[in-house]
């Protein structure tokens, strides 16, 4: 089942001179698929992530998420779709260190407008999956780098999104922690989540079911991982 479809997307930033970040990108992600998007710095990877993550709108072209043409959505509609159907994991985990592990997850639960009665079970389930249940009351700043990234994954999946987007999720991690993160992504894929990872890490390219290359704003299919 196609969860995400990108059709002839162009993105130009109105700087002087204008920056053509994406020049006609087509892309599809299926349920349970693990896709690596690789490319050099400046190739348009972050722009591509922002477009498919509904953080930005294309200059031309369309993005269809869960069958919904996002051009038809208002800003509020895109916010809701992002809250309920997308999960993000960034290279910088962006965990709020002054809050506890549980409180960090509850931010996402509140934004997704999930019933408060479901919060305890969901946080326990998410922390169990990433191996941080025993640290639920710890202040997030006391976690190690790998633990923080696992917490970021838990935050991304706690609302049970259908598409998981990750921007260089293992960029700041050692090999063991990186493997942990990829294992968590495997679990999500096994549950039917489409996992799309932006990376220049060749190991992730090998891990993925499919690898696509971004170069000069254009996407080309690469060898299967």
């Amino acid at each position, binding site marked *: 089942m196609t969860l995400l479809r990108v059709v002839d997307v162009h993105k130009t930033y109105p700087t002087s001179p204008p920056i053509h970040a994406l020049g006609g990108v087509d892309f599809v992600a299926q349920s349970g698929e693990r896709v690596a998007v690789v490319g050099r710095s400046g190739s348009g990877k972050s722009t591509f992530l922002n477009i498919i993550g509904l*953080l930005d709108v294309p200059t031309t072209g369309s993005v269809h998420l869960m069958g919904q043409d996002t051009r038809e959505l208002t*800003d509020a509609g895109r*916010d809701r779709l992002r809250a309920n159907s997308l999960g*993000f994991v*960034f290279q*910088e985990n962006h965990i709020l260190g002054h809050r506890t592990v549980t409180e960090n997850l509850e931010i996402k639960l509140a*934004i*997704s407008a999930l019933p408060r009665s479901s919060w305890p079970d969901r946080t326990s389930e998410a922390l169990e999956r990433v191996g941080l249940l025993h640290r639920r009351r710890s202040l997030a700043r006391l976690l190690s780098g790998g633990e923080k990234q696992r917490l970021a994954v838990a935050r991304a999946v706690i609302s049970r999104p259908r598409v998981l987007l990750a921007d260089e999720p293992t960029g700041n991690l050692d090999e063991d922690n990186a493997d942990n993160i990829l294992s968590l992504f495997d679990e999500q894929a096994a549950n039917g989540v489409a996992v799309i990872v932006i990376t220049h890490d060749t190991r992730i390219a090998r891990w993925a079911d499919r690898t696509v290359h971004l170069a000069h704003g254009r996407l080309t299919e690469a060898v299967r991982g």
Partner: protein
Amino acid sequence: MSVRTQVDRFAEVVRDVVIEMHARRMRAVLMMTAVALATGALVAAIAISSVAAHQVDADLAASTLDVVSVTVSGGGTPGGGTITPGDDPATGPVETFPRDAELRAENLDLVAGAGRRLDVTGLVPALVSRDGLPTDDPVAGVSVAGMTSGYLRASAASVGDAPAWMLDGGEPVVFLGPVAAEHLGIPVTDDPTGLSVSIDGVSHSVVGFLHGGSVDLAAVVAVPYTRAVGAVGDDRATRMLVRVERGAGAPISRAIRLALRPDAPERLTASQVVDVNQLRTGVTTQLDRLAAGIGGFLLMLTILLIANAMVVSVMARTSEIGVRRAMGASRRNVAALFLAEGALTGLLGGLAGSAFALVALVVVAAASSWTATVAAWWLVLGPGVGVLAGLISSLYPALRAATIQPALAVRSD
């Protein structure tokens, strides 16, 4: 290090700062405004206090006032006789005030009007009735008073087009206050021809009616002053009303006795009329304005300080805001976060401020031996104003947070 090198380094620092301030213009403006208000508050407090003090002083002077009362020293005692025709004012009653008292008083600078009044009722019998009715059926609730035309000027009363000068003669005429006219069954009319009242059996023609004035003449039957003196026998109960320019009460009260009786000023007593209520109102008003002025200034300062701190907070939380937006938070959600923070900060600050103010009030009152009084609404004022200040100060920061581009914000690290 050479001087030139030091100058160059200093110039480089300044240039660096200017670039930074230019890049964050709004923040720089907010901070400069906060400093301006802080220093301005200090100067304003001093200036406003000074102005308020001057105004209070002026109000005190003004309240003491524009009226001087002159009486016979030692007061008067009831004399004899009634108001009857035939008395010779020139040789009859004993008078302390000179015959030309009004002229002497009005010749003084700063005197707008002067006139004498002698209340007959209470000193001698003065039964008033509608002419034609028996005098043993007098009308109640009216009083007879002799007055000069100058008294009408001094009290700012009016008789319209009626001949006020007749009060300066000796004819049996009366001017009626509206209540007196009503009690006597006399219609208030522009042409009182043929209307008359009886005072102790003597018919007096009604020549006019009294209106307005700073003294209550509504129930008064005014007769010429000399007739009243003739009835009473002396002017020891006479009171001269002198209207002066505003604030000239003190100097006129010193000069009027000498003007009236240069031979024996000690026979007269002059006193300023103080309107206590006006004085209280004036002082209270100026103090209220002082407090409101300083308080308003400090509140503006507080709002700007909070706004500035929140702008800094928004900037520091840019990546957090970006992540929240990435997680699906709307612009409205983000704005609400900062508005709520502002309101809560204001509420808690206002509560603490009210508590502190009450403690300060009690301490200051105890130390100054004042009676501390607290109005219930003051306890609500602090948190109420605090919430309002918090909301106002968080408007711009909330707007700024809501417009942060999440795509850029999550890459801010």
